[in-house]
């Protein structure tokens, strides 16, 4: 290999660690703020406490699954099951609560179910050698089926007020659901950006063979990433159940795609080894703002889908251009 870049100093390149990620998310943050300002000027209804709390609640759920999805995508994998896990876990938590389990136990058991699903994904990918796309496509299909089977296709109403009130509550003027995002984001940031396991996740996504030869236990890293994703999806499933007051196997339909879109808008590369915790956070807020704004502007819901699709293309295109120039 001979490249001209050898002796002469190379144009400064920044690795996708916190430094670059932070700059990049600042630009996305700018876009988000610009949208908020524009919507505040264009409508009377956007900048109201009620609407803003609503926006935060909706974004919170997407943000949580997008963060989990990002762990998986950085290893150059994909988790298509997150939407199905949300539906399935909303059913589980509802059944447990209606079965008389205390709230704390229901939540913990449901999170445990999420962990088990993640471990199963890891097993299929590492031990059986299945491609992540196929493995999680299979569980996505099967989990919906199991959920429907368990409920016979019906919804399970949750009558535990302490549980359902939580999602409507607020602390210090901030909706409880948004506090949950922070509860997830802080440890996720520590794990991905500050701990050695985070480094290993990037290394596996960049070159699993090199990571293995450097002593990284690649299997454990893959198990870790899918477990984080499934556990966060289970958590989002619990919060969804609390928000709508029912457990439904079909809830969260298509959310796996929302989580992938939020992650990619937030700068994650589907080829692996590039991504952050803060990127998908902002990405999910952007997507939610687009949906919320379109509602307030009375845009036909059919058009909303078209606009969202177009904006994803535009945002990711400009983001990639900017990074390539760097």
């Amino acid at each position, binding site marked *: 290999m001979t490249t001209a870049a050898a002796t*002469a100093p190379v144009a*400064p390149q920044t690795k*996708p660690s916190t430094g670059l990620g932070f700059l990049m998310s600042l630009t996305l943050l700018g876009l988000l703020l610009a949208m908020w300002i524009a919507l505040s000027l264009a409508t009377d209804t956007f900048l109201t406490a009620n609407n803003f709390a609503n926006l935060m609640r909706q974004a919170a759920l997407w943000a949580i699954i997008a963060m989990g999805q990002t762990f998986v995508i950085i290893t150059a994998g994909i988790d298509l099951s997150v939407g199905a896990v949300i539906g399935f876990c909303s059913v589980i938590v509802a059944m447990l609560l209606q079965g008389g389990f205390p709230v704390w136990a229901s939540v913990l058991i449901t999170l445990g179910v999420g962990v088990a699903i993640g471990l199963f994904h890891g097993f299929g990918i590492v031990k059986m050698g299945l491609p992540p796309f196929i493995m999680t496509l299979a569980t996505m299909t099967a989990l919906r089926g199991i959920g429907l089977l368990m409920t016979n296709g019906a919804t399970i109403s949750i009558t535990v007020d302490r549980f359902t009130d939580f999602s409507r509550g607020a602390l210090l003027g901030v909706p409880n659901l948004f506090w949950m995002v922070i509860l997830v984001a802080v440890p996720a940031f520590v794990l991905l950006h500050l701990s*050695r396991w985070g480094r290993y996740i990037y290394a596996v996504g*960049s070159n699993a063979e090199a990571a*293995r030869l450097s*002593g990284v236990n690649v299997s454990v890293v893959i198990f870790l990433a899918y477990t984080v994703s499934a556990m966060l999806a289970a958590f989002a499933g619990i919060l969804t159940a609390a928000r709508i007051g029912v457990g439904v196997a079909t809830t969260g339909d298509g959310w796996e795609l929302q989580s992938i879109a939020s992650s990619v808008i937030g700068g994650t590369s589907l080829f692996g080894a590039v991504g952050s915790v803060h990127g998908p956070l902002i990405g999910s807020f952007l997507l939610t703002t687009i949906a919320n704004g379109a509602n307030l502007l009375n845009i036909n819901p059919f058009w909303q889908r078209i606009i969202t699709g177009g904006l994803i293309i535009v945002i990711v295109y400009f983001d990639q251009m900017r990074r390539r120039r760097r």
Partner: protein
Amino acid sequence: MSLAETTGTHGSGPPPDRLGAATPILELRGLDKRFPGTHALKQVDLAFLPGEVHAIVGENGAGKSTLIKLLTGVYPRTSGEIFWHGRPVALATPHDAIALGINAVHQEVILCRHLTVAANLFLGDETASLGILQTRRMERAAQAIIDDIGFRIPSGVLLGDLTIGQQQLVATARAATRGTKFLIFDEPTAYLTRQEADQLFALIRRLHRQGVTIVYISHRLEEIFELADRVSILRDGSLVSTARIADTDEPTIIRGMVNRSIEDVYHKEEIPFGPPVLETRGLTGRGFQDISLTVRTGEIVGLYGLIGAGRSEFVQALFGRHPKTGGSMILKGEAVTIRRESDAIARGIALVPESRRDQGLCLNLGVGFNLNLPIFRRLTRGLVISLPAQREHADRQIRDLRIQTASRNALAANLSGGNQQKLVVGKWLSHGADLYIFDEPTAGVDVGTKVEMYRVFAALLKRDAAIILISSYLPEVYELADRLHVFRAGRLVASHSHKDADHETILAEALGT
């Protein structure tokens, strides 16, 4: 256009005195290329004569790759002029280059592994009738080309099933059969065995006889003396000299390349041997059997053999890639079974693998990241990695190994081959080990980097480490190894002390003749 036909029609032959006053087929005047922060080529004047084999040498970063990319239209030039048969040409896109008949064969084969040889030969130029591919006809035509170059494989096999050397021949055949008049080889033999290289040389000579002008880039100077009519030396983006091969010699070329005389490329110091670090007794596993050898501290043990002789498989078993199936392995006096890479690392074995790109580096991550990858555990304070410790370790290796990089945050992909190799070595220096295994450590790196690599060997030995060195380049293992073991077909067939046999003997042992 039938390709078999094309190879045939070049037969008119070059003029008797190719190096005479003929109009250059391609001439560069004041060719200049700047990248942001880099002046890659500085006012290069160079003329290629029709039908010559023109070698270009230079260290990594001397501008060879940039020159190729300008000649093949991959990069636009910053300034300067290019003349084709005396007429100025734009040569701004790859399409321009192909239209003129300029083609390149790269070090790494850039073809589709999942398609057949025939499909690869005709990729982008398929024969179709009413929109239906004429697979049979293409396979027949491809077979004619392959037979014609004396290369015995069926054209219907998948490219990925061939060895790298055979793939390189297919790439060359492909480049040579599209009306090519000017063919550039960029280190084509970096990953080839001697036999594969010989096959490639035969093909190159054949093209040469057919009147194709050839530019040949290689770090292996002996190849240049074997093939070239003239040689040009690049250093730091400037042309140092162009000379007829008959009028120059190896020391002159090396001096031109590195601007210093290398008294002793194979830097070897007298280091006393200590106790054995590793002993294997009848070790058997996938791809090798019954290997018994000893490696002591302060010693370089060389493993020589053709590709596929079982050397890489043997060291991979030492490193836990595939567990042994028989025999024993004694590490520092203790019988051990190594089941996975992390066992090997924990027990003080480090492997610098054969392919930096596929096995050695996380290319789209930073220089510092790669250097620290094996030691993140050690850099962890409590739950998190200490950023100052991480910076300090990375910077120390960059300094000690003289890794040329803009910063520790630069991506590994942006480093030259030699500097990438230093990264792979550097991560083990950070970690520390008792036994270092180097699998083809100097493939595709320049003389200057090789010398630095050999100095690293000496430094490791002085720190009471032991080294296993695998190389397909005989002079390297011959000069450096204190003990040289020859592998053939998975077995250890001969062992020599330092320089106690000549090259021919060792080569014959490796070939089994």
